[in-house]
């Protein structure tokens, strides 16, 4: 914290965090930066705000001295003259957050593994420094100008902040079973949240929204057994994600190092691009001079049909070839099973 007047020129709002909005800004030293403005809540007592502010300061001091290629650097903090807000000045990551990409649709396996591996490097560094992030999710993964994923938003500095802000922030979908049970976070609850992050990135927002909200069912236990998978997601990916989301933290993957080992072995080919649009799910991938396409129509909960074909990449350079299809309209279980076998082949 400094007594100097900030020379940061705050510009347009570019996002919202749990505790305040994020603005694009210009800093005389660092140029274009992102500034998070954290303010005392109208209903927050001076004592609680003072405690929270002290937490932010402690965390920012850690982060400012903990430079890492996969963590969004905090340049400095400035407190307003009246002490009721803080400007949290960070590197501006021009690629935005992975939440924006997640909202568009499922990410290809290769993109998820790359971002995941980069996030794990940053998370490993945090854990090695005795810190827990507590809020790993697509919205807190920012992509810098080189396409590298960096962990940002270190607002949740203590366990007692988690439930106070969970509902408003909507991140309670990423809280592990034991956090619901006893409110205590750990390295292993970060692993759980990372597993959920991978799941969301692989499936995109539309698909994710078709299931019951996790925040309503994680506390009941066995959540990982109820995850709905897009048929192209390989079994090894499913096993890996489930192993990060075991209810019992002692039976879960125990550390970032273990997760890194698992991630390294995950297949990324064939690398389908996938779109979920209403009742339709469509896939495509290039295969030499041809494009392979799959279309799954979920006509209703019990009536499904699908077809797969290839077509020339250049129009008119050949004929379409049928690669597979459902036998007319079939049930959901059969369609999903057939699709999984098709993607496996």
């Amino acid at each position, binding site marked *: 914290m400094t007594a100097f007047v900030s020379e940061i020129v705050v510009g347009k709002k570019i996002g919202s965090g749990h505790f305040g909005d994020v603005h694009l800004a210009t800093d005389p030293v660092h140029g274009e930066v992102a500034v998070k403005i954290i303010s005392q809540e109208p209903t927050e007592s001076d004592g609680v705000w003072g405690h929270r502010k002290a937490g932010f300061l402690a965390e920012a001091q850690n982060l400012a001295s903990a430079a890492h*290629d996969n963590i969004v650097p905090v340049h400095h903090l400035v407190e307003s003259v009246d002490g009721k807000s803080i400007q949290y000045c960070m590197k501006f990551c021009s690629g935005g957050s992975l939440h924006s990409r997640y909202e568009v649709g499922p990410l290809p396996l*290769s993109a998820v*593994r*790359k971002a995941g*591996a980069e996030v794990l*490097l940053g998370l*490993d*560094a945090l854990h*090695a*420094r005795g810190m827990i992030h507590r809020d790993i999710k697509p919205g807190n993964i920012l992509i810098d100008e080189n396409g590298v994923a960096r962990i940002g938003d270190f607002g949740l500095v203590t366990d007692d902040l988690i439930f106070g802000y969970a509902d408003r922030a909507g991140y309670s979908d990423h809280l592990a079973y034991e956090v619901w049970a006893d409110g205590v976070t750990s390295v292993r609850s970060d692993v759980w949240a990372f597993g959920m992050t991978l799941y969301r990135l692989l499936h995109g927002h539309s698909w994710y929204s078709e299931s019951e909200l996790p925040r309503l069912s994680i506390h009941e236990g066995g959540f990982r057994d109820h995850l709905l998978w897009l048929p192209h997601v390989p079994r090894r990916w499913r096993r890996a994600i489930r192993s990060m989301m075991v209810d019992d933290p002692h039976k879960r993957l125990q550390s970032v*190092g273990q997760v*890194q*080992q698992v*991630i*390294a*072995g*995950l*297949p*990324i*080919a064939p690398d389908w691009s996938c779109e979920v649009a209403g009742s339709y799910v469509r896939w495509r991938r290039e295969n030499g001079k041809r494009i392979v396409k799959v279309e799954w129509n979920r006509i209703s909960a019990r009536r499904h049909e699908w077809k797969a074909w290839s077509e020339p990449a250049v129009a008119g350079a050949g004929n379409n070839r049928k690669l597979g299809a459902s036998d007319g309209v079939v049930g959901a279980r059969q369609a999903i099973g057939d699709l999984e076998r098709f993607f496996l082949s």
Partner: protein
Amino acid sequence: MTERWVGLVISGEKVTVADAEVPDDGPLILQADLTWKLQTGSKPAAYYALSQLCSNYLRENGIEKVVIKASATSQSGVRLGHFHSAELRGVIQSAAASVCEVKVIPKAAVSKNFGDRKVDEYIKDTGFWGQEFNGKPLRSGSREAAMLLLAERKQA
């Protein structure tokens, strides 16, 4: 003075990691026994990812020295797999050298530096490992990486 060292053995597409606190004498205290695997898919991207993982681990855990088992000729002939291992060994050496001191020692030198027996004999001797290491459990498959640390301490 106690320092934190890491022994690395690269074989195929994996790196066996023995991370220990090394006092001037007495048993070493094992901090971690890990395996780093090369990602599937594109080799250049996988090498880059593993080099980042390696340098990240060494930096974040305050490792002061890395001891790597050197490449060696094979009596049964050199196959493509040996070249791939050698490539990975180079990647790991480079990544480690960006963080701390790196020693590359051949297997023969380990025997010569440490004791009367050959490395493989020490590796098979479970009682020996109970005497030489405390801390976290050491997998039998990681004993060769751990042996590098014992040999380097004796030599240093």
